[in-house]
């Protein structure tokens, strides 16, 4: 599903965010990416949907050779990956319905199909009552559920999440994690960068620890391993 071979990333300011990362994530896995701030987690995540490009090495996601991908093929690749962010990244002027529908509009899906599918995923994230609300009128947890719905609506094979509970209180975080758990149970691969020790320790999933740009630990049913 996701493969990285000796990936290096050096930013123009000289900081080496990743130094020789190789990893393989299979279909249906649920992987936590942990590590101190600035260790390279975010870069690791951003490389997968090509917000950043590697300086060296090769990356394959869902059959796409990310670093060789032509500019105009990038949208095609992104439509097959759902991305969830810490700051939700919802379009502020669009309603909940429109935000989720946007991901289907870009693939020019027929209107009826959009309607049905959006209703389906909003039902899954329990937001059917908030269809016409704007993101600003929702709580953080609700906004994150909208963004998860948007990531899901195209039925992607993999969902990549960058600290999705970073802005949420513990209780809401657990609701969001239950949702990811449910999505993973239905067969979607999930890669999630997180700082949430409690969640990682409780969920007992595969854990990748990144420090100084290198993977220092890769455990099945791992633990967080850092003091917060």
């Amino acid at each position: 599903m996701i493969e990285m071979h000796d990936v290096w990333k050096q930013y123009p300011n000289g900081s080496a965010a990743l130094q020789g990362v190789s990893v393989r994530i299979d279909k249906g896995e649920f992987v936590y990416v942990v590590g101190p701030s600035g260790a390279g987690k975010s870069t690791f995540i951003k490389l997968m949907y090509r917000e950043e490009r590697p300086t060296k090495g090769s990356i394959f996601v869902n059959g796409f050779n990310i670093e060789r991908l032509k500019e105009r093929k990038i949208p095609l690749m992104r439509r097959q990956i759902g991305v969830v962010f810490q700051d939700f990244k919802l379009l502020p002027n669009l309603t909940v319905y429109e935000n989720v529908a946007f991901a289907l509009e870009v693939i020019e899906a027929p209107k009826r199909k959009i309607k049905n599918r959006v209703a389906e995923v909003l039902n899954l994230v329990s937001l059917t009552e908030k269809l016409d609300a704007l993101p600003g009128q929702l709580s953080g947890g609700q906004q994150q559920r909208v963004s998860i719905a948007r990531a899901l609506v195209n039925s992607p094979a993999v969902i990549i999440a960058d600290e999705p509970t970073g802005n949420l209180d513990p209780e809401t975080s657990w609701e969001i994690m239950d949702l990811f758990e449910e999505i993973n149970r239905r067969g979607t691969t999930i890669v999630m960068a997180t700082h949430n020790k409690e969640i990682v320790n409780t969920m007992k999933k595969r854990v990748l620890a990144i420090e100084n740009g290198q993977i220092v630990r890769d455990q099945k049913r791992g633990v967080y391993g850092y003091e917060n």
Partner: protein
Amino acid sequence: MKISTFRRHGREGLKNLTRNGWMTFASFSAVTVTLLLLGVFLLLAYNVQQFSYQLEDQVVINVFVKEGLQKNEVIELERQIKNTPGVVEMKFVPKETGLKDLKDKFKENGELLDVMESNNPLPDKFVVKASNPQETKIVSQKIEQSPLVDKVKYGEDWVDQLFKVTDMVRNAGAIFVIGLCFTALFLINNTIKVTIFARRKEIEIMKLCGATNWFIRWPFLIEGLLIGLFGSILPILALGIGYDYLLKNVSGVMLFSFAPFDPLIYSVSGLLIGIGALIGMLGSVLSISRFLRI
């Protein structure tokens, strides 16, 4: 692109006008103000140009006929002048008419010239106009070559000066209008750039959702087009009503008359709509392009 997708872009472009109310207002105002300014100067420059042509049109060549020519020789001279390249209009003024014109010029003191009636010292003359007033000098030199001509006068001293001034006025007007066009482009483009900068996050989000560049561009392009079109309405109305009022109340400045309403206002309106629409579209599309690189 599917037709339904195109309709979606149109709808989005239209909705964005109200969704981003204040930014729409800012861009709209920038278009309105700069186009109004541009329109006023276009009308001004065009009229000044017309004035300069009217002024040049007053320039005539007086061709004085040699004393004591036979009638057939005068006819021959008339033929020669008519065949001179660059001559567009000519009129024979016999010395009697010349005297009468002179008398009219002196008005109530005209009787003083009555003594000349019996022994008119004025020569017969042809009044000639060059098709291009700027070529008056060349034309008069050609006519002067005829042995039947006594002398040719066109007010050399001040006419050459006049042409220098009118040329300068016209060139300055053209440069000014072109400069103003660029200023308008720059002002409108900058306002659009600022308003779009505020929406760069949206563009980024759309890209991350897998939208193609053109999928993002279309609504912006339509939005820009609408702002440009709507923005040109007020200036056109203001210019049309204002110019109409001016024509009805002021016939002209000194000796000059204003250019007629039709077709001047229609051309200026067309130009303003065109500039508004074009800058609106280009400004939007160019401004978002640097945020699409993600």
